[in-house]
């Protein structure tokens, strides 16, 4: 199996801080991988580097056999990477449906003239965009809230909406940044099922950043653990749970705790 994404020696510094320090890891096609680590370990920065929000100081990122390191954000996205955000970035004042349609339209074009005259392909393509968006909303359980303003949704639903919006880009790789943040245990449980179902049904590769260790341990067969910007461990859930560096990062040094 070939790697869908491969990071080699990625480094990013902000002033004197090495936010990401020579990170290398790869994720296989169709894999569901977890990226864990304490607060400030640099996990979100890795996502920002993959999606071109930041440019790495060193190293390269190869996605689907192509070097995407120098590409701009929108070009990276068009190659087939979609992501959600730790702090939700929905279009708050638009409806739930509009939020998804805004993303879904990028795979379903019509020309400028068809747009301003509403002739030609406009009607058919707009219907396709709407149908596709409604299907995805139904998939994440938001179909009955399609016309509600996105900002008025309960928190857990806003997270689901972000997932639907990301899926509407037909990505090959989905990056989920703390999808369970701020959720109660039942919601985490339901989200767990949703992520596994999406992974199974859409044939995607997924990287998920998460603080809820039980969620990651349960759904991700491949886990990368970071601390202070560097990779400290990689492997399956059991290996990660026993890894001395991981235990040290999460529980502290014996000397410190003593």
């Amino acid at each position, binding site marked *: 199996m070939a790697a869908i994404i491969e990071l080699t020696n990625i480094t990013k510094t902000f002033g004197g801080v090495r936010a990401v320090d020579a990170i290398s890891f790869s994720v296989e096609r169709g894999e569901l991988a977890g990226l864990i680590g304490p607060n400030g370990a640099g996990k979100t920065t890795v996502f920002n580097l993959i999606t071109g929000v930041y440019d790495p100081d060193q190293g390269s990122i190869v996605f689907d056999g192509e070097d995407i390191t120098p590409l701009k954000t929108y070009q990276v996205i068009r190659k087939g990477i979609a992501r959600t955000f730790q702090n939700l*970035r929905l279009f708050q004042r638009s409806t739930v449906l509009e939020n998804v349609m805004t993303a879904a*339209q*990028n795979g379903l074009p*019509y020309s400028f003239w068809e747009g301003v005259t509403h002739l030609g392909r406009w009607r058919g393509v707009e219907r396709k965009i709407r149908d596709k968006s409604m299907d995805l909303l139904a998939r994440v359980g938001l179909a009955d809230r399609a016309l509600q303003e996105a900002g008025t949704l309960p928190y857990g639903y806003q997270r689901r909406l972000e997932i639907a919006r990301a899926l509407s880009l037909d990505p090959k790789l989905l990056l989920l940044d703390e999808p369970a943040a701020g959720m109660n245990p039942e919601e985490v449980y339901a989200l767990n099922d949703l992520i596994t179902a999406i992974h199974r049904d859409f044939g995607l590769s997924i990287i998920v950043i998460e603080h809820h260790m039980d969620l990651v341990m349960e759904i991700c067969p491949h886990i990368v653990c970071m601390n202070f910007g560097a990779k400290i461990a990689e492997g399956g859930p059991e290996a990660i749970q026993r890894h001395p560096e991981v235990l040290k990062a999460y529980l502290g040094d014996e000397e410190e705790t003593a």
Partner: protein
Amino acid sequence: MSGYTEGIIILLCINAIAGMGVSLLTGFAGVFSLGHAAYMALGAYTTAILTVQYSMHWLPAIVAGGIVAMIVAYFIGVPTLRLMGDYFAIASLGLGEAIRLILENWQSVTRGARGYPGIDPYTTLPVAVGAFLILLILMFNFINSRYGRACKACRDDYIAASLLGFNTANIRILALVLSAFYCGVAGALLGGFLSFIQPVMFDMMKSTELTAVVVFGGLGSMSGTLLGTLVITLVTELFRPISQYRMLIYGAVLVIIMVIRPEGILGNRELPSFFRRFLRRDS
């Protein structure tokens, strides 16, 4: 219909066309401009010179006026709209003044500060209303298409927009170029209405007024902009007899709106959805 009423309707159409242009850029793409009168000036002078000097028919000349405004907007937009923040607002302010000064000093072509007289009065009532209706339909179609959604996405959160695969710089440039076309056409119609144009008509006051009307009507509401145009144009016209004191009333109207409805008359809603919401609240 008396000539006076006719004049006011023509002026309303012209102001509404310019207002729609600025509304697209500021209300829908979230880019503030302080120099859109310059695009009106470019449209007005291009059309005036083409019809008077080169005896071109007014219809292609008006379109040419819009296109010249678009071209200038493109060259301003490319370097400034790739950056986020207030760069464009500052650049537009500079551009506005620069174009006015060029028009004032390029005597051989524009006849300078004394103005450009003898323009054919081609802006009759049907021409003004016709242009308004066509541009109105195209504008509403535009904002209810993928392009409108793209503009709103860039306005609400440009990082999220680029992470949904939008080239946000290009979308802002598209909005600017279209808004310049609308203002260019509005300027061209104004020239044909007054038969006389002067650089001072397109100064910073005019630019500020264009943006004020859009904020007044509600950012992100095209029908709000039209309503705002109606109110502001009528206030300035109906109180013409009391000459400069009407600016007091104009100012007072703006202050009152800002105090009682800071989001503008319609907020970010279009007229039908505004009424629906209003009725629901009542019942």
